[in-house]
């Protein structure tokens, strides 16, 4: 962008800003809508930056992203990012929500005073179909043609003034990725935009062929010249969808992700661990010895610290997922995976939620709403928690490092990385078997058409990936700061009661110890003792809590205090017991957040209770087998 264009945009901004201030009519709530793959979310990120929040629309399973866009005159506009839709015919839940919000039918959301309609300028003729129902709402609308950089570089063209004339609404050509033309959108937000002129020839909205015909006519009268097909996308697809190279690359990508997560994260994690140890020692040295210091250092610091250590690993995983998704490769992965998914009665679209479930089951379950078939969706929700989420990763990492030798297998693969990959495979295989059983029994359904749009390949932007990582670390740290903090404090209390002559009773005779001993007979066949038992109970809240718990238990016990966690664990578990514990974690549903989100998404307690019981039985049986098969 040249300095000159910035300058003119400045002037227009200020002049419009004044007129808006004079009229006092800047819109308060603006809805952002567009078809999937139109770059809607990129624009949303561009406009709102870090000032976003994600919630669910009450009563439905559709995510509600809202954010605040700041205006040059100091004002602010609330932007609602509506789900990506191809039409406004309310059939799916997404379309229903979009329709209800735009027409002011939702009591919880104010009717938007203006609409930003985002369309892909490289595929304008088809995307214009959505303009007809949106413009006919009679709400002030800015028609945004996104991906201007692609349109230009591939030789496309559109006459903006003619298009605005045809549509009776202002039109802006922007590139949300490059930040080009954003000031035009901000100008629109700042000004009191006029209502769109009634369309001269409104197509019959529910008749798709007529809508498409209308869109084609509007496009050709705006002298729209479609760009030539993206050369690089064709070239890359020839490689990534090659009958032989394609699946090999697919496997290589998956393996590379896991190998990197396990090896590259280690120095970062050591750094975080060192920070927590050093600051913990400093606190211990600064505060006078008291019950409060004990709670703070042994309870809070050690417990929370042992979980926060895994932040680098979680972020690396989200970094890879973000790159795969933003580059467009994820859609190709779904295509390659579809046949395999179809064999267990699922579809390629289940692959993306299931892949996200490797990060966390909660966003994965939210992502299943792209699956239109309800039974396919329920089946995907039920198997998603079997995917190895990032909360299991710290548990696996710890146990593998404590019990498996760090040596090379077959000359190239690290034994520990191989074990980790094996655990990932185990969760996946059980998920597949479960899906098969469910889809051939209670969730049997007619196969729905599988439709997958292949977006062009694009370079992921630092900004978009950075925002996602920021968001994820916020969620992860919030969990460490709430659920896990609460559990560690409760555990500390349970471990220090009942007091004996004003002193803590020692772990074995505390409330926590008694609970551990009470469940020991049940878990003994799995190779677990009462200390692991306490960890299992606290991990029902969130899987990674077991590490904080064990850290706390070992920290309080004079015998194990001096040992590091791996050594202490080797006292408590045999190798068979360690494998049994990992298998238990692979199968069991130990996550309050997941149970809550399944209840919300399936609309009742039936499925989450079934899921909890089923996964629990499987975990017990699997751990029992592992302990008895491995010496």
């Amino acid at each position, binding site marked *: 962008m040249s300095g000159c264009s910035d300058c003119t945009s400045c002037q227009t901004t200020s002049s419009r800003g004044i007129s808006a201030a004079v009229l006092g009519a800047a819109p308060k709530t603006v809805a952002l809508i567009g078809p999937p793959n139109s770059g809607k979310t990129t624009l949303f990120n561009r406009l709102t930056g870090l000032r976003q929040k994600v919630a669910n629309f009450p009563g439905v399973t559709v995510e509600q992203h809202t954010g605040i866009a700041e205006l040059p005159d100091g004002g602010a506009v609330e932007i609602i990012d509506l789900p990506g839709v191809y039409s406004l015919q309310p059939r799916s839940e997404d379309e229903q929500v979009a329709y209800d919000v735009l027409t002011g039918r939702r009591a919880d959301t104010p009717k938007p005073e203006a609409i930003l309609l985002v369309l892909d300028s490289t*595929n304008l003729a088809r995307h214009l179909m959505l303009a007809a129902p949106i413009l006919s709402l009679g709400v002030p609308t800015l028609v945004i043609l996104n991906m201007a950089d692609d349109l230009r570089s591939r030789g496309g063209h559109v006459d903006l003034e003619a298009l605005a004339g045809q549509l009776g609404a202002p039109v802006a050509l922007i590139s949300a990725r490059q930040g080009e033309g954003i000031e035009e959108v901000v100008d629109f937000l700042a000004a009191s935009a006029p209502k769109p002129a009634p369309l001269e020839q409104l197509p019959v909205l529910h008749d798709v062929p007529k809508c498409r015909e209308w869109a084609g006519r509007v496009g050709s009268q705006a002298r729209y010249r479609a760009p030539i097909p993206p050369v690089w996308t064709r070239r890359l697809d020839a490689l990534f*969808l090659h009958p032989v190279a394609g699946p090999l690359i697919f496997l290589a990508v998956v393996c590379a992700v896991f190998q990197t997560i396990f090896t590259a994260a280690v120095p970062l994690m050591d750094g975080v661990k060192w920070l927590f140890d050093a600051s913990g020692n400093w606190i211990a040295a600064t505060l006078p010895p008291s019950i409060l210091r004990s709670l703070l250092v042994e309870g809070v610091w050690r417990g929370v610290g042992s979980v926060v250590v895994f932040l680098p690993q979680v972020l690396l995983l989200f970094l890879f997922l973000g790159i795969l998704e933003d580059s467009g490769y994820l859609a190709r992965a779904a295509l390659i995976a579809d046949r395999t998914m179809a064999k267990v009665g699922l579809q390629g679209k289940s692959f993306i939620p299931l892949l996200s479930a490797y990060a966390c089951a909660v966003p994965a379950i939210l992502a299943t709403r792209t699956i239109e078939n309800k039974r396919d969706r329920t089946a995907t929700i039920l198997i998603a928690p079997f995917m190895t989420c990032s909360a299991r990763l710290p548990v696996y990492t710890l146990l593998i490092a404590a019990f498996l030798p760090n040596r090379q297998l077959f000359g190239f693969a690290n034994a520990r990385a191989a074990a980790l990959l094996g655990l990932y495979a185990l969760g996946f295989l059980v998920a597949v078997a479960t899906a098969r059983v469910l889809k051939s029994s209670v969730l049997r359904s007619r196969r729905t058409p599988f439709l997958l749009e*292949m977006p062009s390949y694009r370079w992921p932007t630092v900004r978009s990936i950075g925002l996602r990582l920021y968001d994820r670390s916020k969620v992860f740290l919030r969990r460490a700061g709430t659920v896990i903090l609460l559990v560690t404090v409760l555990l500390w209390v349970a471990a220090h009661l009942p007091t004996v002559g004003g002193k803590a009773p020692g772990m074995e005779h505390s409330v926590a110890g008694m609970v551990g001993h009470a469940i020991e007979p049940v878990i003994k066949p799995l190779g677990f003792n009462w200390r692991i038992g306490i960890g299992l109970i606290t991990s029902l809240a969130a899987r990674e809590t077991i590490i904080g718990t064990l850290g706390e238990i070992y920290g309080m016990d004079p015998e194990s205090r001096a040992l590091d966690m791996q050594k202490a664990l080797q006292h408590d578990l045999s190798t068979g017991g360690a494998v049994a514990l990992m298998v238990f974690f692979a199968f069991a549903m130990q996550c309050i957040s997941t149970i809550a989100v399944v209840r919300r998404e399936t609309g009742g307690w039936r499925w989450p209770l079934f899921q909890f019981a089923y996964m629990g039985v499987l975990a017990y049986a699997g751990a029992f087998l592992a302990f008895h098969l491995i010496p």
Partner: protein
Amino acid sequence: MGGRRGIEGTAQAAHYVLLTTISDFAILNNMLQLSGNKNLHADRLATLVDLRRGDAAILDCIDLPGDDARRLMELGFLPGTRVVAGLSAPGGDPRVFQVDGSEIALRRETARRLRVRFIGAPGTP
């Protein structure tokens, strides 16, 4: 926009009436001209499954229940539109089709329900 003409329907009761517009015929004619002497298969009725990579065809009708057909039409699979078969997952299923400026992947079982007028590909005998 002028008159509409129905193309003859398929033997099966298609859920969607086969309507093409004059402009659609223009596309069809264009295609026929482009393919020149190679349009030997122009009258053959086939489905998308019969297209090999690089083959082009004109979509005739969608033999699927209302909502499924609608979804396909919103993605560009409208009667009268030119569809080109593209790459596929290993084993040929699902296959990517270029239609109306986008690339959409369909499974074999869905592609079988989309009837086309096969017009061959530039460069095929």
